[in-house]
Every structure is written in C-alpha cells, then in structure tokens.
C-alpha cells in the first residue's frame, strides 16, 4: 500500500499501541466508548477552530455504519487529507459534543477508491 503515515508528526495520548485491535477495523457504528479502535472512512466535513495559542482541526469521518469526529489539536490542516479522502484512524473513543470522538488519533491516508464511499 502506498499510504503515508503521519503518526510521527503529532503526539497521541494512546501511543502505547493496540495489541487488542491490531489490524482490525471496527465499523464506526459499532465503536464503543472508551475502547481502543481502528476505524476507516471518508472525510465528509472539516471544522477549523482558529485560536491564537492552539488551533484545532476537527474532521468527521463516516463509513456505511456511522460517523465519528477526529480532533487534531495544534493544527489547522493535515497534509494529504482533504474532503473526500479515505483515512484510517487509530485511537481511543472519547466524546465531543455528545458524540463519539477520537483525540489526536494515529492517522493513515488510504489511496482513494480503496473503500466504500461512506454514503448511506
């Protein structure tokens, strides 16, 4: 796979590795709170929260089963990630605005067309 990994570029609070979920992708609809997961899907929205000290970038990623927010602190853009990109995220499911979210997950960009469209 020609995917690039940006995992080294930002710190993650779940850097200890995921022996339990290694290589297994969870459908987003089945992600349970506080579990370590790998999800993959299509970036459908981006939200930039500008701030003097630490900007935040929020992506929502959807697969056929649901969506999850990915929060990247300290950045306003992720190189190689655009609306419609297929990405894989690895992290621990937390909460943001009442819905499931991943904080600073490990990010892998997947070649386009490798997965489902993420459309319902």
């Amino acid at each position, binding site marked *: 796979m020609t995917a690039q990994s940006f995992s080294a570029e930002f710190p993650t609070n779940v850097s200890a590795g995921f022996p339990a979920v290694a290589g297994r992708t969870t459908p987003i609809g089945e992600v*349970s*709170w506080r579990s370590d997961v790998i999800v993959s899907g299509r970036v*459908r929205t981006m939200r930039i929260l500008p701030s003097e000290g630490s900007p935040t970038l929020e992506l929502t990623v959807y697969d056929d089963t*649901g969506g999850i927010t990915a929060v990247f602190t300290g950045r306003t853009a992720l190189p190689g990630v655009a609306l*419609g990109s297929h990405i894989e995220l690895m992290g621990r499911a937390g*909460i943001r605005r009442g*819905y*499931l979210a991943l904080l600073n997950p490990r990010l892998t960009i997947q070649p386009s067309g490798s997965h489902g469209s993420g459309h*319902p």
Partner: protein
Amino acid sequence: MSATELQPDGVATESSGEPSAVAAGIDGPRPLPQLGAYAVPETFGYRLKSRLLGSPLDTEALEHERLGNPTALAIFASDCISSSAYASEEILRVLVPAVGIAAFSLLVPITVSMLVVLFFLTLSYRETIKEYPSAGGAYIVTLDNFGIIPAQVAGVALLTDYILTVAVSTAAGVAAIASAFPEVGSFVLPLSLLSVLIIAYGNLRGLRESGSMFRVPTYFFMLMMAIMFGIGFFRMAIGDLPHASVHNHALLPFGTVGGGVLMGASLFKILHAFSSGGTAVTGVEAISNGVPAFRKPEWKNARKTLMFMSLILGSLFLGLSVLASHMHVAPYQSGYPTVIAEVARLVFGPSIGGKIAFYAFQAGTMLILLMAANTSFADFPRLASFHAGDNFMPRQLTKRGHRLQFSNGIIMLAVAAALLLLVTDAKVDHLIPLYAIGVFLSFTLSQAGMARHHIRKKEPHWRKGIFVNGMGALLSFVVLVVFAVTKFTHGAWFIILLVPLMVMLLVRLNRQYESEQVELKEDAMAAATAPIMRRHVALVFVNELDSSAARAILYARTLMPDELRAVHIAVDTERADQLRDQWAGLAISRIPLELMECPDRRVTKAAVDLVAAELDGETEVSVLLPRRVYRRWWHRLLHDSTAEQIALAVGRLPHANVTTVPFQFERVPTKVDYDASSHTH
C-alpha cells in the same frame, strides 16, 4: 462550552442539561448519525430530473478515459468525415444552375482544390497537436499567442460553427432518411428537431460508454462507402455505370454551358462553388481539441489519427465527386433524394441486393451525420466552459450538472440549433451559406497563432513550422475571404455580423464580472475586521396571529436583539384592529406590536419605509419573515408571494438583513428524533 471538551476517559461529561446528554446515554456517546439521514423531501423538479436523467453522479466518477486510436478516430472523425455526405452536392448546387451540364466537369477540379486546402490544414494541425497537447484547441492557441480578445473571436467563431454543425448534420441526416423513404419528406423539420432533442437528452444523461457507441456508425459508414466505391469504380472501369436522367423537373434547373476554360462559369461562381465545398473540411480541428483523450504518447497518436482522418475524408470526398460527375447526378430542388443517395442508388442498381445495399448505405449516412451532431454536443459545452472560466460567458456554463456534463452548455446548444432549424426550415442548402465561415476564421487565427508561436519559441525546425502554419493561416484566410464575399448575400452576412456582436457582448460581460470581482475583493480584509454595529433591531413581519407568526417571534427572541418588535402592514384596517385585540390578550404581548398604515396597498413600499426608518448608520436590522413551506409545488400556487417580494425589496437596503422563518405544514424528522429513536433500542 463545557460539553465540547473531549474526555477520553469519560469522566465528568454527564452533567445533566448539557447538550451532551442528548446522545450520551447509559452506554456512553454514540457515533454521529449519517449525513443525509434526515429525510427532507426532494423537490418535484429534482425528482423529475432524477427520473429522466438517472441518479446523480459523484464528481469522483469524472474519470479520464483514454482512447485507443481506432476509437478516437471514430469519435473525432464523425464530424469531419460526415461532411463528405453533402459537400459534393453543395458544389453542384451552385454550379448546375449556372453552367448546366458543365458543372460535372468542374466538380472534380474544385474538389481537388479543396483537398489542397485540406492537405495544408492537416499539416498545420499536426504542428498544433504537438505544441499544444492540452485540451482547448484554437481558443487556447489564440489565447496564448494573441491574447484574450482574439481568443474570444476564435472561440465565438467555433461556437457558432458547432451550432451549425448540429443543425446541418441533423438536417442532412433526416434528408438521408427522406432519400430512402420519400414519404418522410414532409416531416423533415419536425424529425430534425426531434433528433436534436434526442441527442441533447442523451448528452444530458451522459453517454458514458460512448466509445463503442461511436465506433459502430463511423466504421459502418466507412465500410458502406468502401463497398459503394468498390462496385462503383469497377462498373466505371468496365463502362457499365448508368447516367442519371437530367430531364427531371424536380431537379435544379440547368444553366447553359459556355465556352472557355471555365465553360461559361464566372470566376465568382467557381469561387462560390469552392466555398460551398469548403464545408467538407469542417471538423478537421476536432482532434486538436481533444489530444488529452489519446493514449500516451498523446501527440504522436493524435497526429497519426489526424493523418488517417484527413486521408479518409479526402478519398471519400474525391470518390463521391468523381462518381457524381461521371454519372451526372444533379441535386434536387427539395433537397432529397440527396446526391450521395442518388450515387449509391445508381451504383448499387435496381436488383434486390442493390436495394438492400442502398438502404444500408442510407442508414450508415444518417447514423454518421447524427454522430457528427453529437460530437458538437461534446465540444460546444467544453469550449463554452473555457470562455466562462475566463469570465467571458455566464458562469453557469462552468458548472457540471446532475450527470457531470456541462448541462447548461448542452441546453444552450440544443436551443440555438433548434432555432436555426426552425428559421431555415431544416434545409441543408439554406444552412450551408452560414456554415464553415466560423471554422475558417478560427483556423486562420489558430494557425497564425501557431506561426507566431514558432517565431517566439524558435524550437528545433521552427522555420519549417512557420512555413507550414503560415501556409495554413494564409490558405484559411483566403478561403475565409472567398466565403465571406461569395456567400455574403446568401446568408453569410448573418455570421459576419453575429461574430463581432457576440464578441462585443462577451467583452461587455467580462467587464461586468471583473468590476464585480474588484468590488468584492477590494477592502475584504478591512471589511472583515471592521467594528460591528452598535445596535441590533429585529422586526418580525406578522400578517395574522397564527402558528407561523408565533414561530417567527420565538426565533427572533433567540437572536437577543436590542429591540424586538412585531410589525403589521395594515392593508385592511379592520384586520389590523382584530390583530391588535388578539395581541393584547396574549402572553407574548410583552413584545410590542407596531401597525403601519398602507393606504396605497403597496406592501413592499411600506415595508421598505418601515425598515429604512431604523437605519441610522449604527444599527443592523434583522427582518424576519414567517414563511410557509408547502409540501407540494401546487400548494404554493394557492398563496401569493408577498413575503418573497418584501424580502427582495428590503434586501436592497444597506444593513437590512432578511431572514425567512419557515413553517412546515408537515414536520420533517430532525436530529433530535434520531437521537431519541436510537435510545429506544
């Protein structure tokens, strides 16, 4: 904002009353619901469109299909090759009434001289393909070498010709049917219009698998021509070919043969005939417009295909002219049977096999002509989108539609071609004088542009390039002048007037777009950081005290304006009094109600006056208009559109902001419903 904090460990998020409590139930937070999960009903128009055109396509589906040379030849050559179906006839149409039977002797020399032009144009376009392998053709070449205004001239010239290609090709295609079945003759116009409609529809739907679809008609036509030539020239060699009857009152009246080299024809007539034959070379530019569609190395493949195309066109055109002149096939007054059909009929003979071959031949002619019209439906919208992208045509032309086609361009072309067919009664010989001028104008500009390119760049072999493109430009220019002069009174004047007028229009349009952009971009940063207005007044327009008005007032309260008022424009004073009484008896009476008289019943004027009174340079006014949302399109017809008119009028005032507050007659499920339902199981 406390609810937005991210708590991977899930501690201390569940303070009740926070929005997070909505989705985070006993099992913790849930995934986001799918976008588009709330079933907002689609409009009637959209449902109709989806039914007609199929489901919408994603932008990602916009794939770049690469064509093998045989397929590319079939796609790009249909326009070019199909013109052989009427070029010989158009030469005869000019000559026969002038010099009678001598026309048949002059036909072949005139054809050959046109082939000389074709030869040089082909060489010229070989250069263009190599130097400008991107899409865009004449427009881009002229833009790059002469600037933006000449590019508009080249573009407009090509656009008008694409419209004519559609009109001429469909008319000629239907004439091919009429040649086989004369009963169809009286329906040529409606059938032509129907063909345009069908082709436009097909293009709006998107002809994805066009490759194989194009191959069949193009190669079938070539095959039928080859068979016809094989039989024709064999019979000619053994002296077996019949002569057409020249004593038929349906034929064009014959002129008298004179003496001299030109056999009585004036030089003017010869040039006129030559220019009518010039329609044959239209479409030569098609390949240079679509080089990126070829397989790698694109320019080499495109060049090879161009040579083949010119060779095929040349032999078809020459072969037909030779056969027509040998058998003395004269054109009919009514336009059908066509010369090409008569040639085929005589060559194939009256036997059963001959009849079948003749019908197959006519089918092939018709198909390739309709394919040629279809080619324009690919080229015109793309070229128009280039113009629009450079701000010289309406922006709407750059937008890809439902099925990823430039829908607006397709519709524009279809309408223009249909109008042209209506005006000319779908008669090919009425259309021909308009045709090909545009193409030769764009040939001239793009070849001169190429010559200039060689002078500027001085790449290897640039001297040869200057010669080839210079010859191309010169020849195209000469042909252009001959066209303009000899066909001026027959209709060419229309194009000669139209092109400059259109260019002027486009330049005017461009100035408009540019000035808009200057105004929008200037001081944008300053405007973004300007201090906000001191005061905010919200005015809720109330017609009567109903649910829609109540909803609008509720919404207005969430805006937390400095001042909130309900206003009623009293067209009917009795109703105003009634409203006042109702208001006084209500809990929401804490919000003031303002009644404004409107003796002339001009509600929009009164609304503007009312809002304008609030504007003092320190106030933003929000105008809230309760608006009913109807479930069916015809429900809307039952009510007037006063709210829309008020919105338009008030929106012209500075710092007056109009918001419509919708009131749905049947509620649409919302996100809260999703969350509620996902909690139940």
